[in-house]
């Protein structure tokens, strides 16, 4: 097997954000052996930790504790040492809204090396221009006249609060952005976030009276392919979808999933070099929404043709009585050849595949509930 090709001399590092702290899982180039390091921020709820591909050494982590308010930690040395943001994401004084936690972090465009974006719960969009030290709200979204209509109230969010996530920056144009909101839907901006419009045609929202509204949807995870930025995918509360811009109507690609498994899940991961290859991790979205592996038999599903057909990939995974869930940020791929694919579970296990999902191995266990996994 070829070595993983990453910015770190072939080594893969997985940043594992959990409900109780941050761990790093270090893999040697062949990705056969792994070393777990941590915890850092023990006792903190770490919602997302992301490395900066633009310099290969900066990282941001979004954290809070059960008691203390939300903050951002920043590292310039691959997570060895951390400093707290001087001004974490917070809504404007007098706006009446309070950031419960920062949920999502996205490095900015390559031409803006110190820019980062953050999405919060409840739905807010923030930008830093100094590598995460200070943050300001993006008024074009946070104060948009339609924001309240788009987002709904707290009862329209996830059990852990409504969230703004999946902040996507077009690698061809720093002013072209997409965001996802649970709930709210997918929105697009072509002017650097000064204005936004819904982009949800073709996506079902069967929990609303109008099954195909303009907004109010629940995209769980939206991805843009870095080599083909006009190709978007989303794992939604109501299926799996694909959109090839400039088209405006999402195509349902979840209908070919096995009926016994269904098209519901949280994460969706793209192959780093092939826009037609993607992975999802289905969960039980029937009746009262158990949100566990269907039938207690966890499996990854892969498509190599843009979602026309799907293959079950479960070799090495538990065959029965395994009831974990994989959250929307807890599945990722590295840049190796073949690509490594990884997911973290609500039961604290980190699973990895060195062969694009054909076989799986448990790389770490007994961690707290895993919220996010990112390759750095």
């Amino acid at each position, binding site marked *: 097997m070829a070595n993983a090709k990453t910015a770190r001399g072939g080594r893969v590092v997985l940043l594992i954000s959990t409900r109780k702290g941050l761990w790093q899982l270090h893999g040697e180039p062949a990705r056969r052996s792994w070393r777990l390091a941590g915890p850092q921020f023990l006792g903190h709820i770490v919602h997302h930790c992301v490395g900066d591909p633009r310099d290969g050494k900066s990282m941001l982590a979004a954290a809070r*504790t*059960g*008691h*203390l*308010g939300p*903050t951002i930690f920043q590292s310039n040395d691959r997570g060895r040492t951390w400093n*707290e*943001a*001087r001004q*974490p994401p*917070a*809504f*404007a*004084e*007098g*706006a*009446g*809204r*309070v*950031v419960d936690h920062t949920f999502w972090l996205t490095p900015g465009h390559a031409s803006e090396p110190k820019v980062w974006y953050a999405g919060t719960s409840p739905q807010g969009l923030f930008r830093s221009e100094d590598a995460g030290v200070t943050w300001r709200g993006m008024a074009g979204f946070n104060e948009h006249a339609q924001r309240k209509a788009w987002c709904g109230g707290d009862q329209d969010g996830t059990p852990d609060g409504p969230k703004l996530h999946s902040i996507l920056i077009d690698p061809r144009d720093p002013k072209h952005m997409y965001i996802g909101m649970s709930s709210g839907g997918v929105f697009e901006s072509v002017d650097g976030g000064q204005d936004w419009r819904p982009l949800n045609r073709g996506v079902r929202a069967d929990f609303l009276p109008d099954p195909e509204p303009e907004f109010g949807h629940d995209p769980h995870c939206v991805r843009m392919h870095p080599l083909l930025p006009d190709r978007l995918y989303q794992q939604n509360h109501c299926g799996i979808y694909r959109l090839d811009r400039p088209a405006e109507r999402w195509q349902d690609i979840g209908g070919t999933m096995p009926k016994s498994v269904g098209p519901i899940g949280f994460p969706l991961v793209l192959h780093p070099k092939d826009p037609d290859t993607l992975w999802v991790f289905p969960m039980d979205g029937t009746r009262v929404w158990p949100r566990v592996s269907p039938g207690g038999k966890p499996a990854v599903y892969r498509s190599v043709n843009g979602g026309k057909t799907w293959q079950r990939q479960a070799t090495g995974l538990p065959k029965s009585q395994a009831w974990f869930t994989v959250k929307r940020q807890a599945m990722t791929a590295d840049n190796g050849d073949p690509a490594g694919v990884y997911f973290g579970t609500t039961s604290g296990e980190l699973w990895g595949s060195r062969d694009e999902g054909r076989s799986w191995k448990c790389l770490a266990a007994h961690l707290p509930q895993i919220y996010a996994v990112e390759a750095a």
Partner: protein
Amino acid sequence: MDARSLAILESIMRVLIPDPLRSYTAGIAVVNAPGATLAELVDELDRRYPGLRFRIIDEQGGIRRHIKFFVNGLQACDLRPMLRERDEVMIVCALSGG
């Protein structure tokens, strides 16, 4: 000690810092700080220990859900209470989650 220094000293409150916040105070559990109101006292703490305020007070000036303030043993529901010299202010992280 002149009269002005004495007055400042007498207006200083004793603040008990809970363990989860001591990463900001370099481990110090008891801080002496001035403030005519609880709000002023918290601002002074944040001036000395940057970042501390936002962990316990939200951006709208509200006390965060699992944080409690006690002044001389009586709970303060907001930051408006006036403080008197030598008051004891206790910041408590209440129970939350498993």
